[in-house]
C-alpha cells in the first residue's frame, strides 16, 4: 500500500456521487479512504436482467464493482490524475436476492506508479458467499 496520506476523500466522494451514472443507479459511497471503499446500490426494477426471477442484471453488479474499485484507487495515494479501468474480471457466485440492497467493498492491494491492483466483493447480506467478486487493474493516478 502507498504510504502517502490520501488526498481529501471528500473530494473523491463528491466526484463519484456527482457522476451521472452513479445518480442513475442511486449509488451511495459509504466509506472511503486509504485505498478502500464501500458503496451501496438500492434494488430498482429498471435494473432487472431476468424478469422471471426479478434478479438484477449482472452488468449492474459490474458497474457497482467498477465504481467501487475506481473510488478505492483514487484514495490509495495522492491522486494527480483521474484513474481509468485497464481490465476488470467479474466472477458471479450467485444471483442477488431481489429487493435487497447490494454493498460493494473494494481494496487496493498493490499500488505502483503505473498500475493499481484492486479486489472487490458484492454482498446482498443473505448468505456468506458474495454475489460477485471482482479483480481489476487500474491506471495509476499518482
Amino acid at each position, binding site marked *: 500500500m502507498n504510504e502517502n496520506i490520501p488526498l481529501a476523500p471528500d473530494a473523491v466522494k463528491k466526484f463519484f456521487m456527482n457522476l451521472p451514472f452513479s445518480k442513475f443507479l442511486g449509488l451511495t459511497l459509504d466509506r472511503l479512504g486509504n485505498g478502500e471503499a464501500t458503496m451501496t446500490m438500492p434494488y430498482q426494477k429498471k435494473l432487472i436482467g431476468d424478469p422471471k426471477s426479478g434478479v438484477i*442484471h449482472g452488468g449492474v453488479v459490474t458497474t457497482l464493482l467498477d465504481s467501487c474499485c475506481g473510488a478505492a484507487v483514487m484514495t490509495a495515494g495522492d491522486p494527480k490524475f483521474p484513474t481509468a479501468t485497464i481490465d*476488470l474480471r467479474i466472477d458471479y457466485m450467485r*444471483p442477488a436476492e431481489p429487493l435487497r440492497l447490494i454493498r460493494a467493498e473494494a481494496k487496493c492491494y498493490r499500488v505502483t506508479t503505473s498500475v493499481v491492483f484492486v479486489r472487490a466483493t458484492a454482498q446482498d447480506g443473505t448468505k456468506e458467499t458474495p454475489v460477485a467478486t471482482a479483480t481489476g487493474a487500474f491506471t495509476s493516478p499518482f
Partner: protein
Amino acid sequence: MKKIKKVDSLDSLRKKILNSLVKGIPFCQTLGIQVDYLGNEITAHLPFNKEFVGNPAIPALHGGVIGSFLEITAIIQLSWTAFLETEGRELFDKDEVDLKMDESIVRELPKTIDITIDYLHSGLPLESFARASVDRIGRRYASVSVRSWQTDPSKPFAKASGHFLVSKS
C-alpha cells in the same frame, strides 16, 4: 393458432423473436439497447445518453455501462445461437410457422459465470455498437467473446470474454 407461410415471414419472425428477447430484459430497455442482424450475427446498438457519463472531464462513457453493454450483447447472441441450434432449427425448417411467438420461445437466459472486460480506449459521447462471437457452446457451458466500437469496427474501444451457464438439452 394463426399460422402463416414461412416464405413471407421468415425475416419478420426472426425480427420479432429477437426484439422480444431484448424487450424481455428490463435493464436492456433501461439502457436503450437495440439489436439488428446480418444472418445469424447480431449487432447491438447502445445510443449515447448523458446519464451514462463516468468521467465528465472528457466526457467518457462509464466503464460499467460499457461492461453491461458487452455482457448484454454476449447474452443476446448466445441466447440466439442456442435458440437456432435447438427450437429455432426446427422452427425455420417447417413449412409453416406459428406467429404467436414471444420471449417464451427462447429458453431461460444464459447466466454469467465470469466476464473479463478490457478497456482499450475511453468511450466517446457517441452511439456504440457491439458484436459477440460464441466460441464454444456445450450442453452446460458456453464461451463468448465480444467487441465494441463507435466509428471504426476494426478499432474496438472495449472487448470482453466470458463464460456462461446455458440450459441447452
